[in-house]
């Protein structure tokens, strides 16, 4: 449904998106995560054909957005993080305007408005002015405006910011309903636990680069992420690294020892036995919970390690050459 290839976007003096490529299949809800300034909003605006990239290709439902952005707009709904409403208009007028401006026939507008209002639970507030709505209701109205023309793709930038837990849960339910009706959603948010409620996949952006494109909570092939707690970790890292089938040994942010092991109960049992036989005082040995938050942090740490390794290799390289010379 969404295909992005080698996308680059510049602001004066800054590369905001650097060679970003990914695919999103139809009927998925994909989380777009990353720290502030990672390029999430820029990516969403570029996908919405609101800003033009420096290079790269974006295909939405098979259409190249650079060739016909107006046609693509008909398939898209977009909710900006700083959305605005026509404060002096009523909810019905706001929805009617958006339905009309998306080319809905005048005979169908009333029914379209009613459907969008019902979906967002605004059907009892149709005659209330936008300026009189609470924060949560304003958010709902903005989403109703974005989906009033039944787009195939919905792009949402921080849709839950400022909402109370109840409203967030209602929003999650709505997103699942929209997905079940065939819509593809790309949702950017900082609140990872909330994204976990409805997202099936995750795109991670950092410094304008896509650092990972994963399924949420998905195990990698036939491997499993494990967590080890010991009384004294002296020498344990080296010991683990030498064990058969163990990869990627590291400290997690909560100072546990983490590693990747085969997703096989017998092999894990043998590994634990070996550790105990070697005299390691094991407190706990268990599969690591791979929630979205942890997945995100792991990827960030992994990327930082990769960068550090690269830097070290680059610094060592010339010295070695010098010694050899």
């Amino acid at each position: 449904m969404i295909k992005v290839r080698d996308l680059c976007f510049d602001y004066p003096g800054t590369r905001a998106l650097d060679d970003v490529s990914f695919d999103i299949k139809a009927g998925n809800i994909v989380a777009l995560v990353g720290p502030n300034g990672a390029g999430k909003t820029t990516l969403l605006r570029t996908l919405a054909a609101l800003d033009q990239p420096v290079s790269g290709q974006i295909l939405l439902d098979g259409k190249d957005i650079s060739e016909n952005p107006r046609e693509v707009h008909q398939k898209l709904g977009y909710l900006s993080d700083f959305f605005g409403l026509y404060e002096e208009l009523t909810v019905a007028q706001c929805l009617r305007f958006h339905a009309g401006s998306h080319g809905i026939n005048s005979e169908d507008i009333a029914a379209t408005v009613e459907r969008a209002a019902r979906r967002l639970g605004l059907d009892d507030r149709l005659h209330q002015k936008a300026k009189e709505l609470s924060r949560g209701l304003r958010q709902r109205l903005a989403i109703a405006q974005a989906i009033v023309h039944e787009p195939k793709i919905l792009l949402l930038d921080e849709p839950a910011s400022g909402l109370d837990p109840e409203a967030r849960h209602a929003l999650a339910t709505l997103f699942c309903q929209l997905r079940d009706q065939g819509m593809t959603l790309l949702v950017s948010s900082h609140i990872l636990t909330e994204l976990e409620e409805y997202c099936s996949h995750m795109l991670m952006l950092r410094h304008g680069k896509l650092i990972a494109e994963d399924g949420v909570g998905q195990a990698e092939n036939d491997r499993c992420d494990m967590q080890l707690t010991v009384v004294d970790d002296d020498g344990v890292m080296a010991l683990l690294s030498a064990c058969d089938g163990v990869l990627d040994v590291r400290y997690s942010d909560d100072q546990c020892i983490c590693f990747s092991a085969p997703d096989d109960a017998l092999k894990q049992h043998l590994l634990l036995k070996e550790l105990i036989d070697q005299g390691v005082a094991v407190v706990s040995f268990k599969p690591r919970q791979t929630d979205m938050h942890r997945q995100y942090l792991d990827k960030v740490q992994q990327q930082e390690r990769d960068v550090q390794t690269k830097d070290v290799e680059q610094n060592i390289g010339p010295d070695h050459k010098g010694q050899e010379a």
Partner: protein
Amino acid sequence: MMIRNPELLRNIWLEMTPHRLMSMPLLLGAYFFLLFVMGDYQFNHADAMQALSISALLTLVWGAHMTAESVLSEVRDNTWDAQRMSAMPAWRLVWGKLLGSSLFSWYGASICFLLFIAVNDFDAMHAVKMMLLYLMAGLLAQATSMLLALLYIRKKISLQRSHTLFFTLISAFTAWQFIAVSGKGAGTLNWFGYTFFTLEFTLISLMAWLIWTWVGCHQLMRSELQTPNKIWMWFAFVLWCIIYLTGFVPLSEVVAVLPYIALSVSMLMTYSMLFSESKDPVAMGNLLRVLMKKDWSQLQLVMPCWLMSMLLMVPAGLVLVLLGKPSAYVSIAPLGQALDYVSPMLVWTAILFVFRDICFVLWLNLSSQLKRPDLAAMLYLTISYTLLPLILSALNMDVVRMVLLPGKDAGAVGLVIAVAEVLLFFWLMRSRWQKHYARNGAEYGK
């Protein structure tokens, strides 16, 4: 009646509230009744003209304010993106905004027009022409105001309410000039050898400028909606300006004066668009990349209007050098002073000064320190073209003056100085560009 333009409908909801629909006739009715009472219970010619003046106040000032706001408030209130993503074609959005946002001012103006029709003592045809003049001036002010707003938002500078006031004043002043010209009396004027009554010619001119302003709004709205424009429209507009101005020259002088006008218009357009259009490094990077790739079909989509106008200057200058003759009408060329002979050296020096200024403006725009590079450039250029030459003249330092102003008697020395200045500013601009390129590692120019 079913209104099929959602933007117009939205504006009607906002502008034509029952309270407003009642207040306008009440206010105007009260004022006109006061005039009626003060005029011994009858209206006179002055009252009819006052009705027209009030209509002008409503449409030229209030209407222009509202049309500028119809764009600027959308950007300020974060609703602009939703409009840009709508299915409305550019023209529907333009006329929906133009008519919709100014509808209340036209409601008041129509009451004034009714009074004018009822009490004026002109003959019927003249009265209709007068009304048309005020009506079209109002439309021109509103369209100009929207044009300026659309131009301004492309620069992506933070918007303030003072911008609306600024655009309103410029637009109202521009449109008022047409009313002022026709109000100078029932004279005649010649255009390409044809004699017109001033009022009729003003009406025709107004109509033509109004159409071009609408075209401009449409083109800018297309750009906002990510629909590419073709360059021929800008060339057609510049050509129209040249033809329109040439029409005021006696037929016998047209051949001699046309190149002056062509050069002057293309220079004026270069400067006006240079300061109006966005010149950020990303836009320039796009242009450079397309130029390097020699992608001519893409070039017409990314080519800024100032560059197109600049390119027109060169052939205009060449024709001027080949055909230019001493002429009494040379003084209309805004080259700084009334000239009775334009030497080829001066023409090329003037063109080189434009190149220098372009490099200077781009150099300032590539700076990451300046917040308002265009404003700074305007200030520096104004000082260097006005105050500094005056100071140097007062100090009898005419040779140094050639560095700042293309002088009539500068000759080859002036030309050499101009070339040196162009090279200097081009080098400065290029260095800053390379610094920028090296800093962010972008693929500009590749």
